[in-house]
């Protein structure tokens, strides 16, 4: 009862905040600039910003109308450089999925091995710390130059950027499994492989999944930057293409969608995390 009323109140505050935000946005982008007098012949050649003092920033109503237009036909395909938002998002998610899965396949087994050996984990730590903070945009020219294929490069950049949090968290999770549990397993003469899968893995799982959750967030951040650079398809390309046309309305729509998809990806991983969490 108490929680539901808290939820209700929180929801009301959220809606009020949204309404206030939209209201301020609307007021701020009304056409206020003085309109210069110009001949009709000249005005015909000019844009609305110049002729009607329309704000260069679109208002919430413009964005809403445009968004509705996109939602009505999300899967259109007008050739290689113009596809619907649904198709663009699908391309991005597919790229993120591929790069991220590859990172999972490498990071978790590797992290497991490193975590079980204190020597290795100490020896490799400086390398991981140096590689971890590198921006995707810094990897891109190197990837393009060596891999010589832009779509593989994009996947590689996602892979290389999303691998580190997972690797570090797996190492940490495996290394910090309680000594008593391992000792108990040892006294019961449990084999190494069985010990890894039945004791260490479940114990380290919450930490590993937290790492995976951080990584998916990073992968989604990276895809937009990577696609803006390599172009062709994807939501990042869409942002770039509309930026090219100085269509801020479409850029705002893309920002909104990127946020929503990012949130959904995070929620999926959060659900997995809850599934493996155990009370101590």
């Amino acid at each position, binding site marked *: 009862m108490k929680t539901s009323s808290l939820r209700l109140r929180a929801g009301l505050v959220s809606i009020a905040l949204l309404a206030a935000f939209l209201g301020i946005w609307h007021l701020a982008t009304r056409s206020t600039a003085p309109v210069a007098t110009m001949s009709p012949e*000249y005005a015909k*050649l*000019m*844009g609305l910003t110049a002729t009607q003092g329309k704000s260069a920033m679109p208002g919430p109503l413009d964005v809403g109308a445009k968004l509705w237009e996109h939602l009505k036909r999300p899967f259109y395909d007008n*050739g290689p450089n113009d596809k619907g938002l649904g198709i663009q998002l699908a391309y991005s998610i597919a790229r993120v999925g591929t790069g991220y899965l590859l990172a999972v396949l490498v990071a978790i087994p590797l992290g497991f091995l490193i975590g079980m050996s204190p020597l290795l984990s100490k020896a490799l730590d400086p390398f991981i710390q140096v590689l971890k903070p590198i921006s995707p945009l810094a990897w891109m020219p190197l990837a393009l130059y060596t891999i*010589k294929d*832009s779509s593989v490069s994009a996947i590689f950049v996602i892979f290389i950027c999303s691998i580190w949090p997972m690797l570090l968290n797996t190492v940490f999770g495996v290394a910090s499994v309680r000594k008593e549990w391992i000792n108990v397993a040892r006294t019961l003469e449990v084999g190494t492989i069985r010990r890894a899968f039945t004791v260490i893995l479940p114990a380290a799982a919450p930490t590993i999944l937290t790492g995976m959750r951080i990584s998916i967030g990073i992968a989604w951040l990276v895809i937009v930057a990577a696609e803006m650079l*390599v*172009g062709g398809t994807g939501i990042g390309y869409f942002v770039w293409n509309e930026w090219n*046309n100085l269509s801020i309305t479409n850029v705002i729509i893309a920002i909104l969608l990127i946020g929503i998809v990012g949130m959904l990806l995070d929620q999926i991983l959060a659900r997995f995390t809850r599934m493996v969490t155990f009370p101590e």
Partner: protein
Amino acid sequence: MSTFDNPFDSDRNLQAGCGCGQHRSAAEHEQAAALRCEPVESEEKRYEGVVASAAMRAMFPQDVARRAFLKSVGASTALAALSQFFPLKTATEVFAQTGTPEKKDLKVGFIPITCATPIIMAAPMGFYSKHGLNVEVVKTAGWAVIRDKTINKEYDAAHMLAPMPIAISLGLGANAIPFAVPAIENINGQGIVLATKHKDKRDPKDWKGLKFAIPFDYSMHNYLLRYYLAEAGLDPDTDVQLRSVPPPEMVANLRADNIDGFLAPDNICQRAIYDGVGFMHLLSKEIWDGHPCCSFAASKEFITSAPNSFAALTRAIVDATAYASKAENRKQIAEAIAPANYINAPVTVLEQVLTGTYADGLGGVKTDAKRVDFDPFPWQSFAVWMLTQMKRWGQIKGDVDYKAVAEQVYLATDTKKLMTEMGLSPPTSSYKSFAVMGKTFDPTKPEDYVASFKIRKAS
């Protein structure tokens, strides 16, 4: 004498002199007509004309005799008579036929600006398919990316700034990979745009300390802006700031007051005016009328491994360029290339660029039909000029074999052959002299030209 002229016109001279009567010799006329690559109604007709000309010439080596013959029987009878002796139709077909392309599905990269008009319009308007190709034109994020993707063979050919293939072939800013230019995309079609607040600062001598954007270091934009500033007594390396900025970001930067102006390819100039943030100070054509801007480029490897595809591609581009050079087609082209799949810009902006009737950003409407023009011929003297500017601004150090580089990269001879096959009349020479801001450039003396500039980077 143009190859497009009607061979059955009795007033036309097939040999010496000139067909239009305005020039003393055929060579002179050809030079004048070189830039007018006017397409005939159809490909078929054009080939027919070329073949018929040849046949008439063979039957009547003397022009006088041919004229007398035509006068006495009339052109249509002559055509019928000629067809009896010589199966014109078959000959035309054989002539138009070329080897089948080794590779039919091609990818061509482009940057969304009006310079790429022939490359882009060839897709929606069917020029590629007409030449037996299935081409996908792919929009690309920037000049460095288009260079890398073409080098990596993701693209078979690409839209590049005219100096880029030279720079790539020389290994400036990238590994040296032999590239070639079979066709220039557009001539003219750039402009200097200044922020509206500078509307009283029209004299470049007052521009000390201003910040300008250019699209790329190896671009005609860079060389023309530097030339223009240097002529006004400013050293572009020390007196102003030149920044390499991707074209779409130029308008945003101008609005944000990060730059004072730019020399950019069109539709970007017109877009800044359309959005009310700047005005057109000068069209690049006022610096050098007929300067090359962008080129159509491919790697030597593609050219040698798929010569027929390359020839078909070049033919499609030359064909599209010829179509685009006609003023009456420009509106239709603007509509074809404006959608999000291609340039992604308001049709009004593209129309103003292509038709040459434009708002200048200061409240006036100006007209200049040659604001942008299209001419495929890759003059080797253009390449020599670009090399002199690379040398002048320190992009190339040491000695340059101007002629060898120009001839290696700008494939004038091949283009000439293709244009002749297509029934267009290419110029006879591959070098021509021209004037930049009143100063004549002699392509045979590039070193003297470089040395003649007072403002240049000391090497």
